[in-house]
């Protein structure tokens, strides 16, 4: 099971408390994780990835295992620790603005 931590505003929007877990067959990627999250919580569509382009929204960042994975290919395999459920996949609202 892959553990996902959403930013507070998206947890509120989806009425989630705490982590979300998703189960993905094969070699999980960012795209798989986001697809699974959006399938379960349709109200989150468009909040992490742009509706028109499918790209990560500019001020949404992805972290795991103390690494910034935001600019990794969405189809790159996730770190083994994330796949094993030892480390969470963090979806973060970038620190920006005032």
């Amino acid at each position, binding site marked *: 099971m892959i553990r996902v931590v959403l930013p507070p505003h998206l947890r509120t929007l989806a009425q989630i408390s705490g982590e979300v877990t998703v189960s993905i067959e094969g070699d999980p990627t960012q795209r798989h994780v986001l697809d699974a999250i959006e399938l379960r919580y349709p109200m989150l569509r*468009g909040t992490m990835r742009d509706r028109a382009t499918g790209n990560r929204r500019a001020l949404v960042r992805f972290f795991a295992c103390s690494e910034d994975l935001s600019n990794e290919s969405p189809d790159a395999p996730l770190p083994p620790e994330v796949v094993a459920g030892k480390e969470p996949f963090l979806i973060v609202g970038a620190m920006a603005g005032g």
Partner: protein
Amino acid sequence: MTAVRLLVGTRKGAFTLTADGTRKNWEVSGPHFGGWEIYHVNGSVADPDRLWASQTSGWFGQIMQRSDDGGRSWQPVGNDFTYAGEVGEHLWYDGTPRPWEFKRIWHIEPSRTDPDVVYAGAEDAALYKSTDAGATWTELTALRTHESGPRWQPGAGGMCLHTIILDPVDPDRIFVAISAAGAFRTDDGGRTWQPINKGLRSAQIPDEDAEVGHCVHRLAMHPSRPDVLYMQKHWDVMRSDNAGDQWHEISGDLPTDFGFPIAVHAHEPETVYVVPIKSDSEHYVPDARLRVYRSRTGGDDWEPLTNGLPQENCYVNILRDAMAVDTLDECGVYFGTSGGQVYGSSDSGDSWQPIVRDLPAVLSVEAQVLP
């Protein structure tokens, strides 16, 4: 007993303010969607408990919320505002072509008759319609793909479709306004559109007959006279007596004719309200005095309304969607400020009281009368 509910959108959430018909004591509820920019909250005339909120964020994009119980609970509905067909290009600030890019919904306009039908105005400018209570949205593409579209250019606040007026008599007629393209009208339910900007004069546009390019800030109409439109333009307060075919200036004796909102009295079609702002480079009220100006002659002759409003050290702005009237016998007038105050008048503007003083900056105010 009759009640009034104000729907207030702010930089950091939505609020509802409720009072009985005397409009003296107000109950404040909120913030709803705390921390999000709420560009607009509006209610259905056909079903006053059905509310809509445009919830947006630079981080997480556009959410559309619907309430079916007067704002006690909300549910997110469809937020797919994809442009239909070829996206096309408009002019960027530097005059170069730039593809349309959806940013947010500025204005929500529910149908006057069907609570499941609602329109939404977008930045970059486009008009959407939902006929299934917000589950899905369909763009009325003929507006964005108007032959003048490639010449549209954003105003300082973005290229936003901020005003939608549904003709109360002719269901096929809709007026919209876009900064800084101008005003447009459809007479066939959105299949075709025509710019309605004749008579507008904008110093930045050398061509006095320019079809588009005018920075229209707001349109207003009295439902009993759908051919009469009032406009607060970037500079100039304007009026049309033929549904926008021709405009003439009614700024008259206003201290400045720059501003954002314009509203019409609920029962007096010739009574109009504006809030003059010092200038386009100084977005606050002139002379540090908050004055609503009222014309009871359809324009040109204006009187300042100051009773109950701060008359010193005041430097607020009132945005285009942040003024509304109610329909009680003695018309209520309301507006919200960039300083977070919402002021109300229960006597057509003769006197004012602060309903709430310390909200986040107010983006929009709508008024509902509840049975």
